[in-house]
Structure formats: C-alpha cells, structure tokens
C-alpha cells in the first residue's frame, strides 16, 4: 500500500522542539531527539545537559574546532555556552534521576497506552544490547517526550497496548511525537493532540494498536516556517 507522505525525521524533531520552553534544562537522546537542537525556536534559551557531565552544551564543534575532551553522549565534539558547568557522571545522573531536568527526549521502539517505554533492545537481536543512560533518564525527568516513527518499517504499530519489546521504564512517557501525530499520555489513556498534515485521526488510529482518545477537534501539526 502506497501511503501519504509522513513527517521526515527532521520534521519530527522540528515538531518536538516546540515542546521545549524557555529556560528549560533539557537532555536529548540518541537518534531523532539529537536533531532537536537544530530546530529550537529562536526566542528560546535552553540549557542542554549531557549525561557525561555537561550542562550548557552549545552547538557541535566545526571542523578544526574539535576538542575530543569535550564530547556529548554521542561522542560528537561539542562546544559550551557561557554559564556551562562540568561535573562527574554520578552528578550528571543525579540530575536525570533526581527530577532536575525539565525535559528529556528519547527515541523509542514502542510506547504503551500506559506510557511504558521500550527503546533499548529489539527482541531476538544479536549481541549484548546496551542500556546507557536511558533508564535513568526515563525514571526521573519532569517531562519525558519520545520521538519515533509511528510504525516499524514493516508497518507494525509502535503505539501499542502493551510493549512486547524489552522495557526501558514503566509509565514514564508524557508525550509522543511521531511522523503521524502528537499524543499525550494521560491517566485516561493516550490522547491524540495533533495529526501530521494531511492525516485524519481515524487514519492515525488505524496505524496504532492502542486506543487513541479523540477530544473535540484534533488540529494538524504546525511546523515552523524554516522547515526543511
């Protein structure tokens, strides 16, 4: 089945960037979340946290500017903004786990209707797998946003009733931004807040396993004018 265009990974990041607020302390995970820094609304000042012990990361280092003692959690050489601070990894995770970060954004394989997250291991995959900081981040952030495609490459829904992938955390997700929708996890269940341009709530529901609650009119996402 040929489908309508979905959001690109960059556009998912662009939409997720709108969830950040001025002055927020923010951790961005691997994958789509890491693209968010490129799409911050200009009016925002956000302080980026890295779990290897940095608060106040700036942009990536340009060629020739790299300092390999100053890398982010993805090993990419970065810069610092004025007011940055450096600390050890235990203090870095004191911040994640202790509820000090305003917003964390992680990638995801599956999110359940209760907000359970699976994002570290595909069942049956070879090798050891790896957890990294995701479980600490998932457990403690004031607000956890998951950015992911709405469906697997094979078309299977990633918004599920219950995760059957290895879990990262229970009932930890607050908001899901996919290439089809923005969805909030509420005590009543998953609430469909926005759909991708050109997609109806019914079409999004059809590509989800979990029930999506539709309240009144569901608007389409607005991407910023400097869209890619």
């Amino acid at each position: 089945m040929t489908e309508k265009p979905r959001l690109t990974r960059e556009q998912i990041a662009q939409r997720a960037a709108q969830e950040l607020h001025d002055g927020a302390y923010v951790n961005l995970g691997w994958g789509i979340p890491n693209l968010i820094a490129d799409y911050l609304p200009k009016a925002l000042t956000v302080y980026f946290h890295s779990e290897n012990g940095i608060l106040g990361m700036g942009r990536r280092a340009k060629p020739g500017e790299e300092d390999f003692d100053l890398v982010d959690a993805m090993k990419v050489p970065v810069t610092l903004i004025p007011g940055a601070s450096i600390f050890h990894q235990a203090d870095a995770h004191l911040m994640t786990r202790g509820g000090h970060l305003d917003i964390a954004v992680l990638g995801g394989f599956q999110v359940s209707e209760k907000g359970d997250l699976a994002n570290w291991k595909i069942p049956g995959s070879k090798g050891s797998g790896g957890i990294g900081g995701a479980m600490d981040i998932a457990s403690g952030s004031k607000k956890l946003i998951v950015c992911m495609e709405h469906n697997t490459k094979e078309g299977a829904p990633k918004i599920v009733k219950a995760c059957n992938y290895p879990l990262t955390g229970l009932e930890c997700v607050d908001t899901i931004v996919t290439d089809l929708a923005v969805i909030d996890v509420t005590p009543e269940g998953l609430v469909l807040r926005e759909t991708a341009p050109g997609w109806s709530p019914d079409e999004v529901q059809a590509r989800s396993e979990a029930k999506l609650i539709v309240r009144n009119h569901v608007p389409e996402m607005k991407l910023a004018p400097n869209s890619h």
Partner: protein
Amino acid sequence: MPASYLFELRFCRWSGTILGNIISVMPERRMKQKIVNSLDAAIADIPDGARIMFGGFGGAGFPNNLIQALSRKGVKNITAISNNCGTREGELGVMFKNGQVKHVICSFPGPHANYFQERFAKGEVTCELVPQGILCERMRTAATGLLGFYTTVGVGTDVAIGKEERVLEGKRCILELPIHADYALIKAQKADELGNLTYRLAARNFNPIMAQAAKFTIVEVEEIVPVGSMSPEDVVTPAIFVHRIMQAKGMRFAG
C-alpha cells in the same frame, strides 16, 4: 541547511563569538530572573510549615542574612534540617528564640544552642538526631531520586530504633530514608547570573548537598559575576540547582 549554520544563526543574535570552545553568547532573557534585590523578597514565598534545609557548619557557610529575613517574616511551624541548632541567637538560633521551628533534623545541636535546648526541654521543639554523614547521604538520596539505602552506621544504637534492620555482605545494617525539603537556604561565595556557584574554603560544607536536595534553593552570595566569567570546570553547584540568588554582605555569627 547544515546544523552548525542554524546554530550559528541562533547564536549570532546574541553577537556570538567563539572563545576556545566556549561560544560567547548573552542569553539575556533568563539570566536575570533568578536574582532578587532584597533579602525579604528572597524568602517572601516561604510559607508556614515549610521544610527547610539550612547550610553551614562551624560558623562557616551559614546563610545568616536569609535566616534573619526569615525570622523577620515570622514564618511558623518550620521543620529545619541543619547540622546544628544555632549559636545563641546566631545562625539558626534566632529561629528557636522566636519559636518559629517545630521540628529539627540535625546531627549536633551544639554547645551554644541554648534557645533550641530551652524549647526542646519544654517540648515545643522535637528533634531527630542523625549521624552527620548519614544526614548528608539522606539528603543526597533525595537529590538523586533514590528511595533509601542500607548502612552499618548507627546499628545497635538509639539511631536504629524503629528502623528496618537486615544483613548485607555479612554486616548488620539499617535502612535509612531520604530527607526531602521544600527549600534550601544556602550560602555561597560567588554566583554567576545563571546561578552557578562557588564556595570559599570550608564554607562549602553542607551547602552543595542541600542545593541539590531541596525542591527550591535560595542562595545568598558575597558576589554576583557575569555569565561566562566562571570556568565551567570550577563550578561546584551547577545553576540547575539554584532558583533564587541574593547578593548580601556577609553577616557572621562565629558563635
């Protein structure tokens, strides 16, 4: 458009230039919001019944100016978390003198905590004594989002009364629970305008731990410096833990 170019656009608005790997930007919007201009304003929203951590040890690093303001405000029924209970009317002493504290969690009230002892004798203040290092760890446990820890400290002593005991690694140990607080009042030497802090010598003591542990941290400092004038490696308390800053000349009660 490559990512670095987008960043540059964003920083150029703040007339950004690169200094080594620190990009010089001036995010004006946020950095002044934590700074208040009076001691009374600094503690104005602390309500009766609040749980408050107070930094300081041995006459050093006490937020004396904030304590004086809190005393003036006349808040009541405070639960105070502090290593000691003041030296006469100094440090926390004034809060006991004025009958503002109902419960204290401390390690060592101290030989000059006469106002505390008077209230304690009359039953007007209750007191939980906690071994000093365990006091630090229980606060740090709250700071780091953990829910309790096992320790050999206090096993078989009065401190263990009512606490769960078990054996781990062949050692008797007791379960200690986190100490949470609504506010921390702390003292630092310098703050930058974002709230990054440094401390002077042994005036550091409990202050960095309390800043991490409380929901809302108010700091009095000797000096406020511009953002970017503190080396990132020298910051002891990162700005994320600091919510309000007041520059105050150091009032000291060495006891």
